[in-house]
């Protein structure tokens, strides 16, 4: 699953160099971590644990795609975990109440529901002019509260979910779980979209320099809204896939994963200050975090250490980004205009 770093076709000098080095260093880190753990516990690399690893990383990696778009614009979306929770239960309820409903319809409804919840964020942020942090902190609790009120102690069990749907999370194609294939396809789509298309470049422009973006004629409000709607729709898809992966869903599903997603994205080189980073890097960030937590499990580190490590990694990534940006600012004058 090593990602070849993209060759720089266009001459974006330092930006590509920086991003490429982050992607290469992530791949190296993942390799070193895997090697070390394998030495300490040879059972670490076997088909089953590799499959588990891919399944574990898939949903986080999917959410990372949406979060990348958001963080590129110097925004943040904390509400994704609650959207995943609601849409996961929604998907389950659809199966329970409508036996025989096609899986595709359920997935589409989940994506649509996520999209609508994302649109709530979008309206408040883009046109209500409320900072994304405040809005999504609020909706994180509002959506989760609504979810608790709706679920009301119930639970969707794997028995009520058709086997064909659960197969997304269990069966494999060419050795790779179908769930992971879905994420990989979307990764390619997002990567191309953000690199080659005007809308994608505008996300970078907004995060890089919001004032310049406005002066360049970019409709910033609309781009912001698009970003949060995309993030919501991705979270909706992740909700449906959450059900496929775990089978059992209650009101607490996906609680707290927004921290993992944000950490993965930032560790993957998407600067929290906006304008810098790629989805491939963010995906590798998610992979690194996932390998790291399996490492902790294999080394029998108590699971209580997990969260502290995650926080420390986020802080480290922010500090590294700031250091790189600082060094760049020292070494360059106005030779390169930002994207």
């Amino acid at each position, binding site marked *: 699953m090593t990602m070849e770093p993209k060759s720089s076709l266009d001459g974006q000098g330092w930006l590509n160099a920086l991003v490429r080095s982050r992607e290469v260093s992530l791949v190296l880190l993942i390799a070193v971590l895997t090697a070390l753990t394998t030495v300490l516990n040879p059972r670490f690399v076997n088909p089953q644990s590799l499959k588990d690893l891919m399944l574990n990383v898939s949903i986080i990696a999917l959410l990372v795609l949406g979060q990348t778009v958001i963080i590129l614009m110097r925004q*943040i979306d904390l509400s994704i975990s609650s959207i995943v929770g609601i849409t996961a239960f929604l998907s389950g309820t659809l199966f329970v109440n409508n036996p025989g409903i096609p899986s595709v319809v359920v997935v589409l409804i989940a994506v649509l529901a996520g999209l609508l919840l994302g649109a709530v964020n979008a309206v*408040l942020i883009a046109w*209500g*002019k*409320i*900072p994304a*942090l*405040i*809005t999504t*902190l*609020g*909706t*994180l*609790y*509002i959506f*989760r*509260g*609504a979810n*608790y*009120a709706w679920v009301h102690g119930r639970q969707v069990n794997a028995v009520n979910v058709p086997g064909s749907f659960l197969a997304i999370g269990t069966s494999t194609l060419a050795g790779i779980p179908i769930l992971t294939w879905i994420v990989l396809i979307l990764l390619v789509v997002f990567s191309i979209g953000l690199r080659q298309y005007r809308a994608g470049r505008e996300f970078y422009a907004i995060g890089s320099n919001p004032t310049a973006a406005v002066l360049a004629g970019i409709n910033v409000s609309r781009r912001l809204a698009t970003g949060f709607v995309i993030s919501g729709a991705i979270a909706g898809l992740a909700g449906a896939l959450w059900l496929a992966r775990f089978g059992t869903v209650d009101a607490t599903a996906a609680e707290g994963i927004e*921290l993992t997603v*944000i*950490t993965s994205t*930032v560790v993957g080189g998407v600067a*929290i*200050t906006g304008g810098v980073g790629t989805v491939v890097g963010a995906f590798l960030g998610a992979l690194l975090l996932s390998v790291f937590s399996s490492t902790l499990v294999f080394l029998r580190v*108590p699971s*209580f*250490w*997990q*969260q*502290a*490590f*995650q*926080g*420390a990694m*986020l*802080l480290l990534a*922010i*500090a590294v980004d*700031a*250091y790189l940006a600082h060094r760049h600012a020292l070494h360059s004058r106005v030779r390169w205009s930002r994207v």
Partner: protein
Amino acid sequence: MSESQPSTRRLASRVSWETILALLLLIAVAGGALLNKDFLTADNWANLLANFVEIALMALPLCLIVITGEIDLSVASMLGLSSSLLGLLWEYKLAMPLGIVICLVAGALCGALNGFLIVRFRLPSLAVTIGTLALFRGFAYITLGDKAVADFPPEYAEFGIGVIPYTFIPMPFVLFVVLALIFWVLLHHTTVGRSLYAIGGNQTAARFSGVNISRLKMLLFVASGVISALAGIVFTFRFSSSRADNGTGFELSAIAAVFLGGILVQGGKGTVTGVVLALLLIGIINNVLTLADVASEILRIVTGSLLIISILLPNLIASTRERLRLIQRQREIAKLGAASVAK
């Protein structure tokens, strides 16, 4: 708070925001009294005031931090860490006063880490404190795992749940009143307070007028750590329970109170009085809903909505005012145009 615009309109809008809050408070009290006959009892008020002490404590330094244009999302995690640490130290039979001091020092260290990363490395406080939100909660889990410590000595538990004799005022609430007074004096009647507004209003201007921005911000984050740790100690005694997940999500209520209290999200504006009124308002709303047997999940929805509305409403008012002014100006121009045509 800049001197550039001494117009009375700004003063008027300030007064009106707090007046609005005071009115809302009155409405909430009246509504509570009408809806439930238990609302105005001393027992209920003791309960009401006790229930928001921790959040109120954390909101005080947070208010100053937001005025300087920064934010601290890690407060609830520092509360959890302090609570876990107190439990662990008590389990190791350490004398309680010493344990309390250690927790406060730990809080100061956590705050200092936040401050150090934000001030020294110029990192955005939002990102740093999301990181330390996870880090400090992680430390809490490392400290106590999934255990719970509950056998605290009765005299301390009594401090947590007791009231001042012959009143309905809970003992921990006194802590809040004292600290609120200190913060009020600090913000509104000292040069430090003026400097904080200056930083939030225009950081560059503040630096050129000789304000030591780094030191002030550092002190604020340390204060936030110490007071969050204090809130953790109060929480532990109030529930006689020390757990790693204590206070999870409290940052939402604290932040909601700060913004509802009229502190501008861009910094530079707001008062301690406004925040105290907002805290009381949130406390009363939660209490009324709890008395009405509304489930706790609805309380989350209400707090989240209050947070969003507290910023949406002023924004809408400001943009409407701006639009009206534009329309008026266009009319004046049209009138002038018509007049010149007539000539």
